[in-house]
């Protein structure tokens, strides 16, 4: 199971990075989404995988009698998903506003803040 997840995370990262190399901002955003989910899955796998044993402690015991699923990474992923959702929604809104105001999604032609003639370093 860990191997399958590792391959999946690798594939998602590779696809994400490939998309992010494109000059089109929407593709960049899709790449980020894939990358963000790959990071979440990596945390999930890092917490070790156990099947079908929820982390519940039976009444009268202080610790669960058998090895159970690790709840901490799941809590972390939940936090990361919520944060990631907020950030990506903001970014999508920014990309839309970018398209409306600048009329392009091609990052190579977006030179309004850094006009090529003004800076000597380009």
């Amino acid at each position, binding site marked *: 199971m860990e191997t399958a997840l590792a391959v999946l995370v690798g594939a998602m990262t590779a696809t994400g990075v490939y998309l992010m190399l494109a000059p089109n901002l929407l593709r960049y955003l899709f790449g980020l989404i894939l990358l963000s989910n790959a990071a979440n899955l990596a945390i999930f796998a890092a*917490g070790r995988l156990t099947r079908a044993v929820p982390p519940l402690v039976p009444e009268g015991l202080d610790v669960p009698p058998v090895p159970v699923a690790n709840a901490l990474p799941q809590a972390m992923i939940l936090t990361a998903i919520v944060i990631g959702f907020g950030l990506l929604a903001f970014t999508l809104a*920014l990309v839309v*506003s970018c398209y409306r105001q*600048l009329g392009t999604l091609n990052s190579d032609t977006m030179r309004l*803040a850094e006009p090529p003639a003004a800076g000597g370093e380009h």
Partner: protein
Amino acid sequence: MGWLLALPFLLPIASGLLAFAARRNTGLARGISLLGCGLLLLVTAWIFASVSRQGPLVAQMGNWPAPFGITLVVDRLSAIMLLVTGLVGLAVGVFALADIDRRRERLGFQGFFQLLLAGVCGSFVTGDLFNLYVWFEVMLIASFALLVLGGERQQVDGGIKYVALNLVSTLLMLTAIGLVYGLTGTLNLADLHLAIAAQGESVAVNALAVLLIGAFGIKAALFPLFFWLPASYHVPPVAVTAVFAGLLTKVGVYALIRTFTLVFPADLEFAHNLLLVAALLTMLTGVLGAAAQYEFRRILAFHIISQIGFLVLGLALFTPLALAGAVFYMIHNIVAKTNLLLISGTVRRMAGSFELAQIGGVYRASPLMATLFFIAAFSLAGFPPLSGFWAKLLLVTASLEEASYWVAAVLLVTGALTLFSMSKIWAEAFWKEHPGGGALALAALGRPEQWQRVVPSLLLVLVTVAMGIYPEPLITFARDTADELLNPAGYIDAVLSQSPD
């Protein structure tokens, strides 16, 4: 005790929410925000005083004992960073009254500004790696909003580059956190020190170190990861640039210092060499980039990058003196850099532009502003007897002690080039005649605006001068901080032995 350590982020969150709710009543929102800034400065000063008296303060959130719950820790480094955050927050908060237009205030500027301070303070007090990630995100989302608030075309253009590259940093950090957890099973920084030490020098530890250098390096604008900074820092209103320049990149440096002194072992050769090379290249590329610019704020933006190199250099040399130099430099730089940006805003108000070719005559219009700029700029360039001189002296001495002569040479060359850029601004904006009509006198701005613009700059200049002519207390404090960072046993004891109260 616990709730007191939480105050540095609870206060700005509370005042931020209130100010955001009251954003349509700009007078009320301004009052709430200023009150929040004032209280924050008081709280941080109080925490600073108790930490310098009695050592690290620790609080376990929710009474869960470390390493199971979230720990808040304030040691000397965190305490002085908090204090300077409170100072910068108040200065920029007052300046923003004059600088931010009504429209942006109605969109919620005050709320986002407070939220940004909350994120910065939260990053300084937390003792948990995942919690640090959460505070980074709070800071990031607030900075996104501040950067594009108002929605001018230039802002959207700069904003998209800032957002796109900072999100990559976030994902790198998240991945690193996942791997750290998988390797050690803990995320408490003090506990991680013990767990990573038990791993020995393995491939995994080195890989994690490099991942974190990538994540924090983007935040800190380290070479070659800094391209988002000159693309975006000159697009928002000056008050926003000033608080970004003062605090945001420094949180990245703080995170680097924290992880490489506390989490990772002191003999991590590969990562330290990587940091050293990156630091030197950051210093040079930043200062050379600035030399090629002719826009007031863009020159300052490139200097931010260059000075990040000084800070990381202090960490990379990894001697007590070098770390003390980094701490001193950090405080000096936050104060001087924030002030220079505030002054650039006032100069623009008086002379009409940020483009050096289109402005001039500020010295004639206001000798006071010229003097303020002169002091802040020459402090940045490292002239005695100003604060930057002592900061640079500590770093140069540290590199000579290590017999790294080329490091000292790069330090001095960068200082000379900084002086070149600062004298360029001085000659163009202050000394030469204004190309059209002449600059406005300060008095022409009207009384409230005049005060709101000059008082914060004056306050920060006084701090710079005080640090310059009477550096002994801060140098002693910086040396104590460096000792504490290099011998983390006290920090770890304080965190792990403290039972919840």
